[in-house]
Structure formats: C-alpha cells, structure tokens
C-alpha cells in the first residue's frame, strides 16, 4: 500500500513538474522571438535561416515521446526547422489556448480538439484552411469529419489519431476464477457476479468523483451498441431520436446496474484511483479506452487483456466508439507559415502515422493506408474496426454548441445515475429538455 502511495505521489509531483515546465516554455512563445538566430544555425547553408515552430497541445503525457522520437525524426529531414512541443494540462488547454490566441501569443501549430471547439477557432480566424496542404489526400471523409466546416468546404486541421473504447481486464484474475471474456450483457453481469461472490477482486474499477468517467467510459463506451452507432448519433442530430428513447434509457439503466460492482465509496473515487486500483491488480475489469495502453503496460505486473463493449444480446451487430480525438492545425497569425505547412504535410504522411501510432500505442492513425502496429493490445483494438461498425461520441458534433452544454450535462447526469440520485428516465428527461431549449434540428441534416 505504501508503495502505491509513493508511486502516486511521485506521479503527481512529476506531472506538476511537467505542467510547470510546459508553462515556462509557453511563457516565451516563439512568435515573439526574432525568426533568425544566427548562433543557433548549424546548417551548412549559410543563406537559410533556422526557424522555430512551437506546438500548443494538451497532451503533456506525451512530452517525452515528442521530444525523443517525433521531433528528431522531423528535424533530421528538415534541419532548418526547429520544433518545440509546449503542452498545457488537459483540463486547462481550451481556456489557455483561447486566451493565448486572443493575446497573440499562441504557438505556430495548434493541436485541435475535435468538432466545435476547433470549428469556433477557425470561424474566428485563428486557424488557417488546409484544403491545399500536400498530404491531405491521405485522409478519408470520416477522418476529416471532426475538423471540417458544416458545409464541407474547408478542412482546418490534419487528423492525427482516434481512440477506441472498450474494457481492460486482468487475465490472471479471470484464469484464477475460471472466467471467460463476456460478449453479451447477460454474460457481463454473470462475470461481475462471479467476481463479487469470490471477493478477491473489485469487479469493476471505476468511480464517479471526476464526473467525466461516468459519461466517457460508461455512457459513450457501451451506448453505441444500444443506439446502433452512427445511425443513432445522426438521428439525434436530425431530431428523429431523443435521449428519452429506449436505447439511451437502457444505457443509463446499465450504468446504474454497475454501481454495486464498483469499489466501496465509489462516489469519491477519482480517475487516478481507479487506474491504480486496476494496475495494482486489485480489480478485475476496467471500463475505459485505448489511450490507457502505454501507462497500463508500464504499471501492471499481471497479464492484461481487452474485450469489446458487450452486446445487448448474442448475434447483434457490434458498434465501437472509435472517436476522432486529436488533430493539428496552423495558427493563422504564425510568422513562419511555410515551415508550419512543411511540418503539417509531414504529419499527414504515412511516415508520421507509423511513428506516432507505434510511439503512442492506443492512439490510432486516421490515415487511409493501414499502419503496422507492434503492440499486441493496440493491434487487438485496431482489429475491432474490421469486426464492428465505428462511431464517435454522440455529444461532440453540433449538439454541444449551445447552453446548457450537452457534454457537461452528460457528465453530470451519468454520474448522478450511478450515484443513485437520478433514475435513467429522469436523466433522459433532463438531457432532452436541456437540448430542446436551444437545439432545433434542420430537416436537411
């Protein structure tokens, strides 16, 4: 126990250090420095000036990967361009970025959140259209859908990666208890019952204290199987489906049914608590997504496996949330547009796709060409794309444009449903009322 605490506190100290480093770097944005730094030029050609590009990002977990793998690979090919990766803490990124863009101190390259957050930046003129960028042809329509204007005319970010939802499980625990991987709802709850009856492991490592786990790792994880992926998501946008419909109520009812299998006092269990609970081998199943692969493989001392979100009943088509999560665009106010475009073209290339997807297992390339992955868990996640229909989180496109914000509301009500404060029906009613108050579906959609 003490060891876990030491590790946790070390991690926290480290992340604080990283955050403060990130803050330090962003405090002196490259845009304000003179573009030519004579003493920094090591390139043989004296006529070419070395330019520095700064990337704003929320992925502070990936700082070392960018510094050790990705940026050196780019700089080896483009010796005249120096790239600095300057991340901010994820929860603060949107606020910090907006403030920096307004103040004119943002980086040359901007990591793009999917859909409306980035669309708003493009409409305000902070991001450049990238329609003519060489390499953009490597991406299909679905990949680009999160970073395109509603009329489909302008693409403004180069898609980098998506994340896939699912369940991690402790293989050793399953072997010890003689359990097999569940594929249907019935089997899933049978497995949970068996683990609970045995008592060695917490059946489901999850808490509701941070709110978002309930929505992202619960609702958006198992939901697509109920609302039939894209079909249900598009129906919500078209207004032909409502959150008070059976698929949504059933999803929340499932979440409420998870509660007895979650750790005692789950109301105060935070995201890092559940991560440690699972990686320390005290829990059997962990609902989450592919982004956990690299940290889990580092921390867990047992054999780990994954399984797909369970099906309502055997034989149903499976749907997975393959969420377009991260892209990169160009600050319209950059002093070095040519260098920035060179970098973006490289990000669109197959070379980057292969490098990135393997350096960060669990973040899957959105490029058309298949990428060879070395990590077995990442391979398995990627293989689900062949077996199942892909969809994205239903609150991201269009539906979170107004007040009350659908995504925030989903966090709140999903946590309340698990905490037993709201019934699934009340949750659906509250969400739909909030959405109806501002969203009027257009028939053409």
């Amino acid at each position: 126990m003490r060891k876990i605490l030491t590790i946790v506190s070390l991690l926290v100290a480290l992340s604080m250090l990283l955050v403060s480093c990130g803050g330090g770097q962003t405090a002196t944005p490259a845009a304000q420095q003179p573009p030519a730094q004579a003493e920094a030029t090591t390139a043989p050609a004296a006529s070419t000036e070395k330019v520095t590009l700064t990337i704003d990002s929320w992925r502070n977990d990936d700082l070392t990967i960018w510094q050790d793998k990705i940026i050196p690979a780019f700089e080896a090919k483009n010796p005249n361009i120096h790239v600095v990766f300057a991340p901010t803490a994820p929860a603060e990124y949107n606020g910090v970025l907006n403030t920096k863009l307004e103040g004119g101190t943002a980086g040359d390259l901007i990591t793009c959140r999917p859909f409306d957050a980035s669309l708003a930046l493009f409409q305000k003129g902070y991001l450049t259209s990238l329609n003519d960028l060489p390499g953009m042809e490597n991406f299909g329509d679905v990949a680009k859908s999160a970073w395109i204007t509603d009329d489909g005319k302008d693409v403004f970010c180069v898609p980098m990666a998506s994340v896939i939802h699912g369940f991690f499980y402790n293989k050793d625990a399953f072997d010890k208890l003689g359990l097999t991987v569940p594929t249907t709802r019935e089997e899933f709850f049978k497995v949970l019952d068996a683990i609970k009856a045995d008592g060695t492991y917490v059946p489901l490592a999850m808490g509701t204290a941070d709110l978002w786990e309930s929505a992202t790792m619960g609702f958006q994880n198992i939901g697509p199987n109920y609302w039939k992926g894209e079909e249900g998501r598009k129906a919500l946008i078209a207004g032909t489906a409502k959150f008070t419909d059976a698929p949504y109520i059933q999803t929340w009812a499932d979440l409420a049914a998870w509660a007895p299998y979650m750790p005692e006092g789950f109301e105060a269990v935070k995201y890092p608590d559940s991560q440690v609970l699972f990686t320390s081998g005290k829990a059997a199943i962990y609902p989450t997504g592919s982004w956990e692969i690299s940290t889990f493989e580092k921390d867990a001392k047992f054999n780990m496996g994954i399984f797909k979100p369970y099906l309502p009943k055997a034989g149903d088509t499976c749907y997975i949330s393959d969420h377009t999560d991260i892209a990169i665009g160009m600050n319209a106010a950059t002093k070095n547009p040519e260098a920035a475009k060179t970098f973006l073209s490289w990000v669109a290339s197959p070379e980057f796709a292969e490098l990135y997807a393997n350096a960060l297992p669990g973040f899957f390339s959105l490029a058309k060409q298949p990428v060879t992955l070395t990590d077995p868990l990442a391979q398995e996640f990627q293989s689900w794309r062949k077996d199942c229909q892909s969809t994205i989180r239903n609150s991201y496109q269009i539906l979170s444009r107004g007040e009350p914000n659908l995504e925030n509301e989903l966090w709140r009500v999903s946590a309340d449903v698990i905490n037993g404060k709201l019934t699934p029906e009340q949750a659906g009613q509250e969400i739909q009322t909030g959405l109806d108050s501002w969203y009027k579906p257009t028939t053409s959609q």
Partner: protein
Amino acid sequence: MQKAAARRPFPWHILVFLAPAVLIYSLFMVYPLINSLRLSFYHIGDQNQTSFVGLSNYVKLFTDPNFAPFFWNALVNNIVFFIIHMVVQNSIGLLLAALLASGGRGRAFYRSTLFMPTVLSVVIIGFIWQLILNPLWGVAKTMLGWVGLESLYRPWLGLESTALQVVSLISVWQFVGIPMILFYTALIGIPEELTEAARVDGAGGWQTFWRIKFPLILPTVGIVGILTFVGNFNAFDLIYTMKGANAGPNHATDIMGTLFYRVFYGQQLQLGDPSMGATVAAMMFLIILTGVLIYLFAFQRRVQTYEM
C-alpha cells in the same frame, strides 16, 4: 499661517515616493478591475466584435434558466462555505489563541505547528486530504476501524449531502492559523494590570475572558470576520483542486469562484464566454464590496477601540 503654507514648496517628494505604488496598483489592480466591470456590459459576438448591451448580461444571469439556477446555487453554497468558516474556523482560532495566550509549556511549538498548514500549497492540502478520506486507501476508514466505528465511514467527498461541508472543513483546517495568530497577538497585547484588577475584584477565568479580554479584542474580531468574508467569496483554488471546475457531485460544491471559472474560460466542449464571466466577476465584486461596506459602517465605526 497662510503665509507659511504659501512659502512652503510643493511636496514633490511625496509624489515621488507614492508614484511607484500608485502606478503599479493602478496598472495591475484598478485598471483590470474597471475594465472587467466594463466588459460585463458588452457582448462578444462570433467574429470577436463587441457591442454594448447595457444590463442584459445581468438580466440573463438572474433569469436565464441556463445561468440563474447555477448562480443561486453557487451563492447559497458560498454562504454555507462562509458560515462554516465563521463559526468553526474563527471560534477554534479564538479558543487556540486563548489557550496559547494563557501560557504553558511548548507554546512556541504549538503556535508554529498550528500555523503550518496555512503556508502549505493548496494543491498539497487538497491532495493529502483526498488521500486521507479516500475510500480505497484512505487512513480515515482504518482509523475509524480502530475505535470500532468503521460503519460510520462514508465517501464524504463524493456525496452530494456532505461534499461542501467536508471541503469547507478542510479549508478551515488549513486556515485556522490566521485567526489564531491575529487573536493571539491581540490577547497578549492586553496589559497585565487589567486582568489582575479583574482577578482582585473576584472575577473567574471565564468572566475575565468574556468581560475584559473579549471586548478589548473586538476590533480584531471584526478584522478576522471581514478577512474571512473576503477570502471565502474569492475562494476557488481548493475546490478546483479537489473537485475540478465542474464542482461535483451535481454542482454541490460549486461556489462563485468555480462558477466564474467555468463561465469565463469554458471547459471541455463548452466555449468560454468572457462577457458573462465578467458579469459573474462583477457580482462577486459587488457582494464583497457590500460586505466590506457593512463592516466599515455598521461595525468598525461603532466598536470601541481602547488605548492600552
């Protein structure tokens, strides 16, 4: 008299000495405050164009179903937060100060120890208490188990009914040192003769404290009260550290500071709204201003200050 004033040169040195403070204060405090108040009368459009909208942001804050419930909820929570500090923090502070001032061994040790949490970072305080109260590996549960009360344990920080009170008490724990030190310095400033005279007149310890010492430190009580008020209505960091900007569960720990942060900066998929944020900030300013004015006119002017 007039002659003398006319002959005396203009006191330039006073201006020179005041200038740095006035300049810095105006530039970094007064100007942003006024500008923020100004922003609350404007609306910022999609293309960043600003337009004057008068009081409509305030009307929206008080009547719009997307803002009003959150605003009143945050205000009520903030008042609860303040009352808990006033009642628990300041009475414990007074008690500790009285104990310290009554002498005894190890006084310096206790004084520094009790003051220590105040100088720690709020991030550390939040982290430590979350670990102590953690349902998975917190010592709170184990310690209750030692006295056979394990069944009383609840995940207090995660329950809608208790989260706000627990967070308030953690803040009380952190800041109890400040009223303690203020009361303590006031108490040790009371001349020995007064308490001695009271003792000669036959007053006991309890009577001496409430009849002699407490009236003498009333100005300090007022200062502690107003400091608590201003501090509490500006509070943000501890709740943000422990519960995030959403101040869950179900906005149970939402106070003015976190509401402002959410509205101004936005979060996740919600875009920030600077002008509505400035409106919330202006309300915080008004509340604090009202409190300070009440203190100045209703308390400070009436309270008797004794020369000791």
